């Protein structure tokens, strides 16, 4: 293969690869050890120093992935009722974007990306710049797998409901669109979307799952990623993708607000789908959730940043907000917003849980087969192949 045609990862792509590797390692550790992570005593174990009101509030900025926006907005409002001396400002940041912003000196005091995939790379870069560890404290806020979410009417109209990405590829390829798929020419083409793999953790995860599904393999190798048949299939799939968003939450919101005119289906985090299920009612009909197989977990870490700009009072304020997020009330609220709580003590199968109440939309607790960690080389070439396929 010539240099002109060989797939090459961009700098961002390389960062994503490192992010995936670090994250897969983290996830493996997380599920093998099965304990919540914390570098601080558990809430209530030791009384932390209170932030003293000093006439003006202690202000902290929290960088977060938009998939957690609604839960965190609730949390900020509730936290303000009990901690009026702490002012929390939410700053929406994608996983990579947040890391880059911190390295560039943006004064975030707490950082809550969609996953911990980028943690190791970020920490190494931070060490080089500041000669110190970047984190004063870390917690796992919640877990969530990937799902496909569809408008129920359209999902039901399909002669063969899609269960895999290969099924979706076949639907996208139908030249007459919904006319051929369900005798509904007024619905136009089938519009399926996922987040941008170079900008969003969920977009990259979608791409990884597509590759696994195409090859029907739990483990991916270079030969499979470079396979000409897969490259052709991926190019055709992505050509038919209706939209690429930098943000999973924003894409899901657009689907709910604009209905099937914008998207018939999306690949998103399970938490995002659940968070929007109730609000989607009474607009364009019900939603239907399916779990692509194989699947993968996304964790949602939160880090108190040990930065020079983060004063002791602000670190303490950030830690107190983190305590609030990890406390049972906020963890149960996270469950309401569709996350599987990071605190294993909060059950997800009890009454009131969305996994019970919203089960009719297709939610389920047990996951199908979960993928094994792909190598960095595999991810690099997968992402580069995607970039070449879509030209974006």
């Amino acid at each position, binding site marked *: 293969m010539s240099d002109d045609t060989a797939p090459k990862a961009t700098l961002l792509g390389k960062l994503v690869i490192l992010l995936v590797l670090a994250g897969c390692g983290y996830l493996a550790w997380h599920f093998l050890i099965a304990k919540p992570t914390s570098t601080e005593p558990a809430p209530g174990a030791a009384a932390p120093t209170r932030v003293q009101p000093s006439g003006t509030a202690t202000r902290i900025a929290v960088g977060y992935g938009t998939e957690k926006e609604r839960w965190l907005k609730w949390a900020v409002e509730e936290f303000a009722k009990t901690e009026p001396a702490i002012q929390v400002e939410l700053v929406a940041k994608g996983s990579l974007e947040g890391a880059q912003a911190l390295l560039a000196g943006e004064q975030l005091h707490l950082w809550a990306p969609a996953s911990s995939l980028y943690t190791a790379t970020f920490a190494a870069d931070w060490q080089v710049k500041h000669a110190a560890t970047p984190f004063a404290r870390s917690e796992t806020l919640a877990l969530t797998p990937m799902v496909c979410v569809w408008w129920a009417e359209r999902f039901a109209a399909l002669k063969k409901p899609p269960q895999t990405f290969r099924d979706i590829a076949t639907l996208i390829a139908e030249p007459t669109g919904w006319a051929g798929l369900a005798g509904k020419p007024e619905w136009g083409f089938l519009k399926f979307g996922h987040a941008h793999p170079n900008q969003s953790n969920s977009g990259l995860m979608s791409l990884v799952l597509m590759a696994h599904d195409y090859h029907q393999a739990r483990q991916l190798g270079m030969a499979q990623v470079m396979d000409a048949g897969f490259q052709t299939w991926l190019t055709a799939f992505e050509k038919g993708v209706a939209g690429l968003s930098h943000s999973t939450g924003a894409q899901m919101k657009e689907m709910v607000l604009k209905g*099937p005119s914008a998207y018939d289906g999306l690949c998103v985090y399970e938490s995002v789908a659940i968070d929007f299920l109730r609000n989607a009612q009474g607009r364009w009909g019900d939603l239907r959730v399916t779990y692509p197989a194989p699947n993968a977990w996304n964790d949602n870490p939160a880090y108190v940043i040990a930065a020079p700009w983060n004063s002791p009072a602000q670190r303490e304020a950030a830690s107190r907000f983190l305590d609030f997020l990890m406390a049972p009330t906020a963890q149960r609220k996270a469950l309401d917003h569709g996350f599987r709580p990071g605190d294993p003590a909060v059950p997800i199968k009890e009454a009131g849980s969305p996994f019970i109440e919203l089960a009719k939309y297709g939610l389920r607790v047990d996951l199908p087969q979960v993928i094994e960690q792909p190598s960095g080389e595999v991810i690099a070439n997968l992402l580069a192949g995607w970039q070449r396929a879509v030209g974006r």
Partner: protein
Amino acid sequence: MLPGMKAIFVLIIVAIVIAMFWSGPSEAPVAPSEPAVQAAPADALTIRIVYGSEKQAWLEAVTTDFNARRVQVAGKPVHVEAVAKGSGELIDDVLAGRDQADLVSPASAAFITLANAQSRAATGGDLVAKTENVVLSPVVIAMWKPMAEALGWPRERIGWGDILALAQHPQGWASKGQPQWGRFRFGHTHPEFSNSGLQTLLAEVYAGAGKQGGLTTADVSAPAVATFVQGIERAVVHYGSSTGFFAKRMFAGGPGYLSAAVLYENLVIEANAATPKPSFPVVAIYPKEGTFWSDHPTGIVERPWVTGERRQAAQAYLKFLLERPQQEAALRFGFRPAAVEVAVAAPIDAAHGADPQEPSTTLETPSAEVIAAAITLWRSAKKPAHVALVLDTSGSMEEDGKIAAARDGAVEFLGLLNPGDRLSLMTFSSTPQWLGQNLPLASAKAQSMAQVGGLIASGKTALNDAVLQAFTALQADPDQGAIKAIVVLSDGADTTSTTTLETLLTRIDPGPESGGAIRIFTIAYGKDAASDVLKRIAETTQAKAYKGGTGDIRLVFRDIATFF
């Protein structure tokens, strides 16, 4: 082509498209609206939002509420100055630094995409980094309910093919059993200046190509597509820069003026909820081939004048707009809320001419290259115009540099007219004088521009006589397939005409069948102009009356050019 080169190529094309499309005023009257009228407190931190005029009523209402709350940033109450402009115009102004707004909110995301491309080319950074949609509204074909029913609505889904068939049918509405409605008269805004106009053109091209996505330049250049677009465009009454203006004129003029126009859904709802109600109910037709959304993205401007304090204030205001009470207010104004917490409900309903379950599908936004090709196609397929430019050269025009500025504006106006259009040129002082009649602009543009560029001022003001003479000449033009319009500029009251104003108004009144009328656009130029008289002349022909001075006369002429 390497991916990097391709990206650069696309960026260049995008920049060219921006320069082509949005270099002038659009979507709004030329004269910018006054800011929401509220005095800022003496100690206020005042920030400025410029926004697409389609949402003026809602935004002014909620901004008044916001200012009353005296939200504090850095110990100061935040005061928001909200200014309505056309979407293209506001982006142009902020990009150029003429308007140092803190927030922008055009009608659709296309303006943000294109503005950022232009900003990156100029400065290396975006104009607006992040946006939030504050309200939504689909682009629809607004049609009088009895007319829609004659087409089979709501039983049948109506699409662009139905519009074409009706536009081309020699019997017009008689082909649908309704001869009393005359010809099918259609309206949409100018695709080079207006969001909804461009979206209309793209929808026509898609329909002509039989596609809903993947549109290519080859599709655009297919003869069948040109025939399709031309077939619809020939039914157009006139173009324009403002979607809101079309809505007002359609609902005021009734079915005799326009059978249908491409508007935003909220304008249909607003009309049906208005007092007094229009002559018939209006319904929103969601074209069966698909449509586009107007989603009003709003974001903070990435420029040095937006200081840290101002950014904080802008964030507080944007957060306020997305809160439930403001989103519920948006719903009352006929917009679909941008907050998922607020359910779609009345007045997004059949009683107000809307269907909350529509649109069923949307059309894919094509590439910049395809958009440019579609615009080129439109220039050759659009309805031709015969424009009479009538300019006051009375002695008072010599004062304050008025004649010089008017010459510049008129020359620019002639430059914007299409080569397929025809021009008649008249000056008037003590008497009217033709400088040329029925001139094909393909060959006569340069000479006409030279004539206008050499005008001098002297004598009295025979306004009424000049307008009547120009009107009579256009009436005598046998071409029934052209937009016929007079553009008259005057800086003073009539002093010498034999024609009285009442006689003139009687002669130019098109009556109920106003769709094919000769429109008279008037410019009250300078502080001494007879603006009331000129307004009556314009409104009698359902055209637009402007006020202008030496500082903005070029913008006025450019806005008028969007009607043709």
